[in-house]
């Protein structure tokens, strides 16, 4: 057995150019597969992180009627208290209770429809990190004559305002009457979801209670949990505790994101697999060629008494070793590549990706890959390689020794 391994090993290097080419092809295949897989995954993950961390949180609680009719009158009774109770549930990291209403925002000469979120500055910072998204101005630090408002950069451009500008919010109070109030733009935030940025503004809840006509008015409780993966369980827990409220987790709120993530998680390995399968056809061709070239040699080995199984193994070992070298190098190089782009990120700007932002994709992607994937891909390369070698090997040993000896 050892000798057969040795012969196989040396056979690989008989045609150095051919072996090198196939090794390089496999390496490129692996790297290409991993790269394209990782970039898809990074795009989705980044979108997920932003959607969940900065927008929806893991779970949201509303009055059941508020979902279809986001009006001030459909508020959560005892909202502040309920928020506290939810926060006390084991596994909940933080909550932010908000007074959310639909309304209009108007600058000197332009206006737009927006969702106004009245928040507790600290709670909001803890749940959605809104404070860290501020690109200009400050995050609810000023105590001026007019109450502060934080709006998205995109909205600021649309209605042509900047930090320090005065704008007017118009919305319905708890009785359904229209009210207006002036705010001063204290800060601008930026998210890669332009849609969210254009349609969501933040004010402090203490400033909204008066206007809306109810103290401690809460229409929305955003919940962040300790372990994201437990979101279904935690949503169920909250639902059980407050059966009269509408409880949704992020997957309910962002179904398309959820499905594309699910799809990717299940199919990433196959996406990569298809690329590697393509390379395997090249490998198959090479092995077949190299076997057919050596028909005479195998025939003579069988003539002198080397068993067919050994000849078969010899050919299979060759492929296993070849693909092992290529697979391991490919994976190591891929690991390096992913590491590099994990730190540096890939800037998609300038390759026509500016438009991506409108769909909620970030323009700089930080690649990462589950270590398990390397392992799976490694196995896959070996399996495909062995499969590619089986037919040529069978062909070689089917040959009768006389035929081989006779074929001049």
């Amino acid at each position, binding site marked *: 057995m050892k000798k057969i391994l040795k*012969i196989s090993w040396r056979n690989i290097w008989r045609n150095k150019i051919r072996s090198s080419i196939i090794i390089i092809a496999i390496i490129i295949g692996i790297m290409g597969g991993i790269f394209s897989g990782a970039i898809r995954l990074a795009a989705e993950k980044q979108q997920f992180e932003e959607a969940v961390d900065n927008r929806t949180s893991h779970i949201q609680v509303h009055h059941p009627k508020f979902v279809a009719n986001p009006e001030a009158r459909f508020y959560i009774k005892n909202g502040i208290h309920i928020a506290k109770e939810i926060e006390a549930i084991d596994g909940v990291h933080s909550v932010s209770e908000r007074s959310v209403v639909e309304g209009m925002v108007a600058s000197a000469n332009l206006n737009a429809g927006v969702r106004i979120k009245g928040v507790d500055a600290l709670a909001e910072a803890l749940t959605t990190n809104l404070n860290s998204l501020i690109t200009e101005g400050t995050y609810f630090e000023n105590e001026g004559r007019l109450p502060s408002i934080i709006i998205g950069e995109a909205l600021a451009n649309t209605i042509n305002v900047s930090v320090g500008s005065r704008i007017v919010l118009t919305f319905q109070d708890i009785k359904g009457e229209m009210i207006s109030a002036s705010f001063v733009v204290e800060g601008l935030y930026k998210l890669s979801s332009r849609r969210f940025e254009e349609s969501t503004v933040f004010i402090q809840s203490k400033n909204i209670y008066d206007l809306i006509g109810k103290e401690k008015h809460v229409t929305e409780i955003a919940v962040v949990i300790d372990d994201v993966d437990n979101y279904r369980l935690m949503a169920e827990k909250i639902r059980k505790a407050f059966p009269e409220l509408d409880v949704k987790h992020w997957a309910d709120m962002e179904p398309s994101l959820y499905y594309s993530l699910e799809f990717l998680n299940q199919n990433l390995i196959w996406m990569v697999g298809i690329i590697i399968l393509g390379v395997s056809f090249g490998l198959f061709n090479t092995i077949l060629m190299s076997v057919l070239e050596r028909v005479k040699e195998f025939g003579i*080995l069988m*003539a002198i*008494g080397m068993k067919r199984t050994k000849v078969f193994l010899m050919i299979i070992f060759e492929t296993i070793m070849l693909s092992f070298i290529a697979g391991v190098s490919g994976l190591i190089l891929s690991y390096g590549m992913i590491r590099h782009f994990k730190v540096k990120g890939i800037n998609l700007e300038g390759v026509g990706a500016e438009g991506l932002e409108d769909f909620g994709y970030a323009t700089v992607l930080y690649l990462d890959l589950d270590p398990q994937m390397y392992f799976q891909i490694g196995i896959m390369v070996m399996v495909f390689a062995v499969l590619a070698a089986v037919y040529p090997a069978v062909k070689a040993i089917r040959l009768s020794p006389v035929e081989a000896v006779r074929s001049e």
Partner: protein
Amino acid sequence: MKTVIETKNLVKVYNGGVAPVKAVNNVNIKFNEGEFTAIVGPSGSGKTTFLNLIGGLDKPTDGEIFIENVDISKLKERKLFDFRLKNIGFVFQSYNLIPVLTAKENVSFIMLLQKMKSNEMNKRAEELLQAVGLGDKMDVRPSKLSGGQQQRVAVARALASKPKFILADEPTANLDTQSALNLLDIMARLNKEENITLLFSTHDQRVIDRARRVVTLIDGAVSEDVNK
């Protein structure tokens, strides 16, 4: 004297072409231990076919082949592999050696297939290569050897398995005169000194007289059998 090979009414018919070809036609012949025989005859007379039959590489259409007491024409394919490995040494016209192994490794390889111990194996490989005059080429790969040297390694390998006899189908066909004579001299010497039974086929007038027995085939039948 002990009979090593005996054929009885040996027939091989090929049905490949337009009409069936009787490549070996009713051959009854014996080869004794220690004989050094040349199988000669014109091209297409059945020399290769005959050697392949007694080497267990091909199945006869009819008749029997006894190697000592075993009728190899009745052996199953699987058994034949083993039988060849243990009992018959082969030297072919070309492509004899594994290109990626050195001369010594090529000779050892067959002993390895026979599961011989490695120290014994090494010693024997070295002795045999010395015997065919390649003591200084042990660690050289076949591509660095001349055709004649390669055939000598093949002879050493054929001997390595301690076979009952050695078959060589046109071993000198690709060699120049000097190398051909040299190879035959080595074979003749091994035959004389070690009492090894050797059969070789040839067209080559230059080497026929090295053999002590010359069997002439014509149209698959023995037309002449001369002992010198």
